[in-house]
């Protein structure tokens, strides 16, 4: 199964363990013990973990794009087909592994799902220690 690694994040101290700062709560294991609270959390967790929408190119887009960056960089763009074409070609030049035969399906997928007239993406916020 594909394991998203887009929110892996390294601590300042290289000796410290790599913290998975995924948008899932650090309290989640506790919450998972109780089914009901978990169900309540589900919509929130989904809202905080930008995932890519379904489509024929999804699996290949995930593999090629999320190797270097997370999905949030993709989902916040609002571009027409010409602009997406430029972006895809730039990323191929910069090392994204996209088979020539898949290029057009990448452009179609991205321009269909992230067009100029779509409303802006709501991005999550980091925890606010002081306000707890």
């Amino acid at each position, binding site marked *: 199964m594909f394991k998203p690694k887009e929110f892996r994040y390294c601590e300042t101290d290289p000796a410290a363990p790599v913290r998975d700062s995924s948008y899932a*709560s*650090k309290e989640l294991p506790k919450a998972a013990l109780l089914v009901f609270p978990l169900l309540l959390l589900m919509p929130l967790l989904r809202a905080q973990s930008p995932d890519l929408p379904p489509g024929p190119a999804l699996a290949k887009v995930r593999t090629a794009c999320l190797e*270097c960056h997370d999905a*949030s960089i993709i989902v916040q763009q609002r*571009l027409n087909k010409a*602009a997406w074409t430029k972006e895809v070609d730039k990323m191929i030049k910069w090392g994204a592994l996209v088979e020539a035969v898949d290029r057009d399906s990448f452009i179609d997928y991205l321009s269909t799902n992230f067009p100029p007239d779509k409303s802006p993406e709501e991005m999550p*916020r980091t*925890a606010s220690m002081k306000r707890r």
Partner: protein
Amino acid sequence: MISRRDFLKRVSGAVATAGAIPPLLTWATDDSSPQIPGEEGMIVRSARFLDLETPQEFLTSWITPVPHFFVRNHMHEPSTLDPRSWRLTIGGEVEKPLTLNLADLAKLEKHTVTNTLECAGNGRAFQQPHVPGIQWQKGAVGTARFSGPRLRDLLQRAGVKPTGKHVMFHGLDEVPGKVPPFIRSIPIEKATDSDTLIATHMNDLPLSKHHGFPARSLVPGWIGAASCKWLSEIKVLDKEFDGNFMKPGYRFPNQAGKPGDPVNPDETHVITALSVKSVIATPADGSTLRSRSIRIDGVAWAGEADIARVEISTDSGASWKPAQLGREQSKYAWRLWTFAWKAPKAGDYTLMARATDSLGRTQPETAVWNPSGYLYNAIDQVKIHVQA
């Protein structure tokens, strides 16, 4: 002129008076928010690479606390940073190439500059038509006290040859795939300015990892991209560096064209100093205010120039009145401003802020469109609804 204490009181009062605390603030306290050590309540534009935006309502303090200071990364942050083994090399067009460690830097005379650092792409999200890139809104900007030795003292020790015209910075960020490394250069005149630093401290503490520990260049008044984090190499060049992040990256059209039209790369120039700009911190766009007594607060900056005035319109730009500037000021640093207003009646209003600087530059109604959305500085506006 109001005192700092009064100003702050008014600023904090403004939020309460306006009743305009955005609902996201409550949401941010939720335990399910992403945890990034050292970062508080920041908008996550990207987690990998890490790009964090300061929420507009935090833009009300003259010095931005480090946990609220925006983070911009093009690449992965260095996976290891060991202050003991860290070295800075100075080479290229110099008489005596140098290799320095952190203790060597600490022995040099320390200088402090209070600088407003803004990402060139701040406000990109407002460009029409949309342009690709991190969709920053108002908060890829912050002000901090940066301290460290002057770059010119290091260059003097190395002895710049007469052929040395530009100074290149290279950091330890890790480049994925075939992405070109983030290398840029600045002209020798700016590099030897007495305020250009190799900063080791930010707000009197050692730089945090996200802000370039253990040392970064700090090119005051210029776009953030001029200041290189995790600095490891300084190279004096006989000409401007010509890598990706100098061309086609970080360039601005010589003449404004029609929005959306292609820009000829030969008719562009490298972006250096910041434009004149102000943003409204509170009230928030789309907020409903319960009182007709409203304080409008924000910040204004102008790169290497000073802010001369900030004007506010509460009638969609039909008339303008001066805002009161905060007392704290320093070359390269933004000014806080505040404006007390009584809405004549309940209803919908468009509030606007417009800054003018010491060079006579005033924010335009429409920013110059460019394909990467750099230097967005259109007059800021928020729409509010007054209930009472």
